[in-house]
């Protein structure tokens, strides 16, 4: 009986898994470094960081080469204040408020300026509103060893409501023990309460966040364990940033039968000299945040905080 079952399995079921994926070596064309400005900052009273680097060959498996010696400033156009970001090495340029004040508030417009090697690169951004996170709920999930895409641990979700009114865009960022979940499968761009932004349609205005927005917090390759800190942040972003994140996601996750034709991600940073190339993104956000410590919870029960 048992053997028969195995045979049936082989003949009939196996065919679903004809497909296979394996890692291969590929020679790519030459890369030329392009200046990249990674400028996601916030109006929080906290250290703000802008990273300046260059692109590197795709298979160069380390952080992209840092750029030092750039002059990085952000101007709040609405009140005229200028904030200077100081070179702290490794490509990181930081600003810490000397008197515990924010660089601005929702609705302020900002100008980013980066001067490097005699060139100037600029970008503008207006900050938008974010919304509150009401709660985080987590539960224990057992995942079989054979599953290469997920591990056993605590999986957390967050609850909250979109702000009623105009279309709001958010970026949900999950953290485990202070480390940002950068899994390409969890890029959590949100338009009102969903991931589907249809221009001209405001279908989910004011609704509670629905899945798959809510559960894009836990990295399934590295879920939370007892004692871990689980934090979710909602960054307010504008429509262009929402589209940028959508493009980043689709370019990082572009496998399978229905892969899109690869394309280059856009940038909202301009070079004063049209012949100079630049990449990266500038966005000033309002941040809301909620966090908890994962406690042991029986299987089937939920933890909340």
């Amino acid at each position, binding site marked *: 009986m048992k053997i028969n079952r195995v045979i049936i399995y082989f003949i009939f079921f196996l065919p679903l898994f004809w497909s296979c994926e394996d890692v291969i070596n590929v020679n790519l064309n030459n890369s030329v470094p392009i200046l990249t400005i990674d400028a996601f900052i916030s109006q929080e009273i906290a250290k703000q960081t802008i990273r300046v680097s260059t*692109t590197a060959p795709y298979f160069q498996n380390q952080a992209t080469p840092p750029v030092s010696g750039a002059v990085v400033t952000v101007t709040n156009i609405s009140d005229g204040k200028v904030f200077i970001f100081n070179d702290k090495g490794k490509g990181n340029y930081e600003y810490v408020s000397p008197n515990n004040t924010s660089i601005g508030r929702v609705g302020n417009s900002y100008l980013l300026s980066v001067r490097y090697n005699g060139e100037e690169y600029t970008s503008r951004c207006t900050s938008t509103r974010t919304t509150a996170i009401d709660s985080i709920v987590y539960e224990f999930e057992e995942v079989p060893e054979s599953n290469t895409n997920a591990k056993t641990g605590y999986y957390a979700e967050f609850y909250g409501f979109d702000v009623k009114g105009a279309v709001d865009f958010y970026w949900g960022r999950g953290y485990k023990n202070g480390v940002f979940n950068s899994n390409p499968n969890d890029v959590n761009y949100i338009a009102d309460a969903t991931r589907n932004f249809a221009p001209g349609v405001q279908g989910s205005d004011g609704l509670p966040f629905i899945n798959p927005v809510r559960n894009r917090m836990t990295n399934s390759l590295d879920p939370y364990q007892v004692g871990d800190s689980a934090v979710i942040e909602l960054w307010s972003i504008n429509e262009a940033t929402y589209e940028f994140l959508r493009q980043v996601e689709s370019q990082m996750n572009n496998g399978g039968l229905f892969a899109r034709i690869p394309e280059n991600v856009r940038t909202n940073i301009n070079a004063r000299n049209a012949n100079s190339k630049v990449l990266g993104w500038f966005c000033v956000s309002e941040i809301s945040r909620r966090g908890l410590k994962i406690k042991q919870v029986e299987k089937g029960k939920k933890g909340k905080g």
Partner: protein
Amino acid sequence: MKITVIVYFLILSISLSINHLHAQQAEKSTVSGYVKDSKNGEKLIGVNVYIKGTTIGTTTNEYGFYSLTLAKGKYELIASYIGYLSVNKELDLSTNTKIDFEIAEQDIQLQEVVVKAEAEDQNVKNIEMSTNKLDIKAIQKIPAFLGEVDVIRSIQLLPGVATVGEGATGFNVRGGAIDQNLVLLDEAPVYNSAHLFGFFSVFNPDAVKDVKLIKGGIPAQYGGRLSSLLDVRMKEGNSKRFAIQGGIGAIFSRVAIEAPIIKDKASFIIAARRSYIDVLAKPFLSGDFKNAQFYFYDLTAKVNYTINPKNTVFISGYFGRDVFGSGFKFNWGNATSTIRWNHLFSDRLFMNLTAFYSNYDYLLGFGGTTANDATSSQFDWTSNIINYSVKPDFTYFLNAKNTIKFGAQSIYYDFRPGKAIITSGNNRSDISLPPKYSLETGFYIDNEQKIGDKLTIQYGMRYSIFNYLGKGEAYEFSQELPNVRRSVTNTTTYGSFESIKQYGNFEPRFSMNLELNATTSLKASYNRMAQYIHLVSNTAASTPLDVWTPSTNNIKPQLADQFALGLFKNFKDNTFETSVEIYYKDLQNQLDFIDNSDLLLNRYLEGDLLQGIGRAYGAEFYVKKNKGKLTGFVSYTLSRTERQVSGLNNNDWFPNRFDRPHNLNMSVSYEFNDYWSASANFVLQSGTPVTFPTSRVQVQDYTIPYNIEATRNNFRVPTYHRLDFAVTKINKKKRPNQRWESNWVFSIYNAYNRRNPFTIYFRRNQTEPLNTEAVRLAIIGSIVPAVSYNFKF
């Protein structure tokens, strides 16, 4: 709208006046009738009916009807058809005469003693070029994936036909996109011909009579797509006796029942298939997959009734669905139904009036497990393309030298790009898109004329009109830089049936056949095609979610001009058929997309579309061996298909995703004896183009691939090659006239276990976030053996 009515009226009056006209030709009379298979009463398409010892003759049309007008006198009339015994009938033509033929299929045992059938040189004699006919028996000989005979998989072996890869929906003909094929099942269009993505097609081989693929020289009768016509004709159903056939295979089982309702007058066929992996897998599924669903099924049915010799009615339908689900719902399917009326106005004027309804729809849903729970959320999305059509087609057999076809077709389209509902707790919100409507009408006239003994020409004209209709909103967009989303500047609302935008196109068609000698002919053709509806897909392989969209005030109709030239020659008493064809196709208004386009549930979709030009050219070589123990064919295509779209690839030409410069297919089968036969396929194709990055960009801990050259399709995946085998054992009959026939098919697909990459993509390493890697995806990554059992009663 007005023009449509006027032209329909015109066609009606022409047909009536033609009818009137031929009473006046006194010295001539007409012989006409149907040609059927003597075994099951199926009407046969493309049978040569001619006067013995002359080149005077005709062929039966799609409904098995022929008509020949000759000077009065005595003749010997022959009906001959490949694979069938020719039948001669004495004819004393003094008045209009009806002669029906019933011809019998050649038995394998009989094959060697049979007198040569003259129809074997049809490929040389016929005016059709760039055309491949496959009867279902030929398809059955080709080793098939999982032992399941499949129409679409078989035509992918023909010269000039390619695909993006295994498992990809549809097929590409002479460098055209998959939406440029008009796939007709009993005259009704099928919008998604694939089951299980692209592994199987929706056509149940047990119900299929005849398959014809026209790649060039498309007659004026057909329009609406640029690249090809795949004309699939269903069986009518055995009108002589009850019959059943079917099979049990590794992936699905099928059964077809056919029987007369009134002997020789009315019959039906009903055929069904269902896959059963899910049923068999059930005991092995656990956890999240406990309730997983994955299956497909289809049902094909047809009834015909010969009311009297002048009137026959056919009703046919297809319904099929693919269902996937596991915490989500995803299913799609086609439904078509066709009613046809064949009417003989006279012995020489044949009419087929078709009315059809066709619907393709899909549903995608998430969540919704716990009802009325404040935390539950749900998303349901459905999309349809529905059309209704009327299509009168007339064949007028003017005389032995001229056959005129004329007619019209109107299709009313109802596009429903997305009905989408989000439910979150007690809130429900509707993000549906409004439907779009349009009307496509075409009129045509076409004449096939014999000039002397050597030259046949066919010339015709089709005029098509397309109306993008209300009720709906029309948008005007800003003119941005190419490859940037355009924003809406103006919205105009239109009422029901109000024309928003109208397009019209003359589509000339021409083909010729010059017989150089008894076994050689030179053929040439030109056709212009217009296409008004478009499949919007920005993925490498089309997904079932892709939506069809009409031409609008922003989307122009696609146009193609194709020139083809071919040399056809048969050798050794028609044992070998050979042909060489070259073609050039010029394409306009090819649809492409801006970077980061959003095609689903996007009200302003048109703002994300780009249109460019395309070109495709190539040479096709084909050798086929028809007779003997060893039969089969070799096809080789050398081709190129490219496009140029401003804003993409630095405004330069780039190869299409389905460009395969070299494409070699071999298919042979060998009959050892009456019971055992073996067959093999070998496929060798250039890899498809892909876009590879050069660099990495790092933003917020994300490592993003980037191509500093901004070129599209700058690499190719490695060459595709594959060998398949099949062995068929026909079971011995216990008694010589036993009706039960059965066979076993043992097959091996991908015999030497090659991992042909479908694509190569780039991703971050799962454990080392800073590391990146290239991944080869092979849809078939192993040998796939299969056994199937087929029976016939």
